């Protein structure tokens, strides 16, 4: 398939998923409310006389992002469970990698929307000096989100057919969140403390390498989970 | 003289032995069911 046709197919699949979600907005609203609740709970879940809001902020932000993402990514392959729609998709000339990338793009858009909406709340709740350094935070968010969405999408495709999918998805995904969260929290803490991004080239490189490895591996492995 | 932590040593050696032996036994039992 030509590259431009591939990209068209990817965008078509992503667009379809997002359009379906936009109609009801159920998963989106749930994820957003979940994010607000987690942010709030983590704010109060500390001894405020010992742990300042600034200290708790980076960890709270990333736990919120990843947990809300897990809630949201569940829906990706649920859509295709109805009427065996995945088989229909596979009958099209779109290669399986294209279907997978389309799903990943949809998930990325979904998770990015949640993250972007959560940022103002985060700034307000935790009273952190973030406005000046927002672009840098967005860069880190992009790096980290690219780390867990492809793997989450792949795992979602597998667990959707099992009985306790909502439980098994997070169970399988959580270990894969550890390196990105460690890196993202370190860099976010630096940003909130006024340190320049250049002080974190190690962590940023690690995140970048993680992204590269897992995006590639996830795309390659998707083919293996389709039964032909 | 050395620190008096022999109890930990005993505990660890016992736990390790129990786990290894229990696993070995479980394999034997399960294999036996298929004879």
């Amino acid at each position, binding site marked *: 398939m030509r590259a431009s046709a591939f990209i068209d197919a990817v965008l078509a699949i992503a667009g379809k998923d997002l359009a379906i979600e936009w109609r009801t907005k159920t998963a989106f609203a749930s994820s957003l409310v979940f994010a607000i609740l987690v942010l709030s709970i983590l704010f109060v879940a500390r001894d405020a006389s010992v742990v300042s809001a600034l200290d708790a902020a980076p960890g709270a932000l990333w736990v919120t992002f990843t947990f809300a993402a897990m809630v949201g990514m569940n829906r990706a392959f649920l859509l295709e469970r109805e009427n065996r729609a995945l088989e229909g998709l596979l009958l099209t000339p779109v290669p399986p990698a294209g279907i997978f990338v389309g799903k990943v793009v949809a998930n990325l858009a979904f998770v990015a929307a949640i993250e972007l909406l959560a940022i103002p709340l985060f700034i307000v709740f935790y009273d952190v000096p973030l406005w000046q350094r927002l672009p840098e935070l967005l860069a880190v968010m992009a790096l980290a989100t690219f780390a867990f969405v492809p793997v989450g999408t792949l795992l979602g495709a597998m667990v959707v057919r099992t009985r306790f999918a909502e439980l*098994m998805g997070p*169970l399988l995904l959580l270990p894969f969140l550890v390196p990105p969260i460690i890196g993202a929290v370190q860099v976010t803490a630096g940003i909130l403390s006024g340190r320049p991004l250049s002080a974190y080239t190690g962590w940023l490189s690690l995140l970048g390498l*993680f992204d590269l*490895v*897992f995006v590639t591996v996830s795309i390659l*492995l998707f083919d293996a989970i389709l039964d032909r | 003289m050395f*620190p008096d*932590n022999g109890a930990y040593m005993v505990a*660890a050696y016992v736990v390790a032995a129990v786990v290894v032996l229990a696993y070995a036994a479980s394999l034997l039992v399960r*294999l036996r069911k298929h004879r």
Partner: protein
Amino acid sequence: MTERAIPQLARRGTVIAMLGLAGLAAVYVRALMFTPIERVQGPAQKIFYLHAPAAWSGLIAFLVTGLFSLLYLIMKDRRLDRLAAASAEVGLAFGVVMLTTGPIWGKPIWGTWWTWDARLTSTLFIFLLFVGYFVLRNAVTDPDTRAAYSSVIGVLALALVPFIHVSVYWFRTLHPTPVVLKPDEPSLPSVMLVTLLASFLVFTVLYVGFTMQRYALAALRDAELEDALDVSG
């Protein structure tokens, strides 16, 4: 494998496992009675003769599972998946040994039950990935789907562990936790070294024997399942 090969594999695996158990008993005797007590750390230091080899066997099990998962995805031979799963279960057992002896050793030596250093944390996550591997495996009934899904987890896990190791190591060097008795990798006198090496050998033998047994068990179960399907189908 032929009809008689599986029971033979089971027998040989059992023999090797029994040899390993005998070796373990010998290591116990040598470690407890014929290896001197380390002066700074005391008797608890001897836990190291079990903890390190168990972690080592767990790591081998993990690498085997990862490698054979990858091979299955390439060659689609279900026997490869069977070996990956057998190795994973044995790895789980050694993981339990490692995760129990570790804290019991850590408390008197490091002052805390757990320390988030790179090696321990990596092995903890290997254990958790193994658990996830089996949870997924047990949730899927069709053997081919189960093999495919397990292999995907196996390969993903293989790619993940180096990243966990590095990120935890960097995290740790930024936030070192205080330690009571810090054993800085003492150069072991030969008496202790021999005990340690003997233990590594024993745990390797145990791994091989157990994995052979577990593989044979899986093969027997699959054969039985196929016979049942043939009769009814």
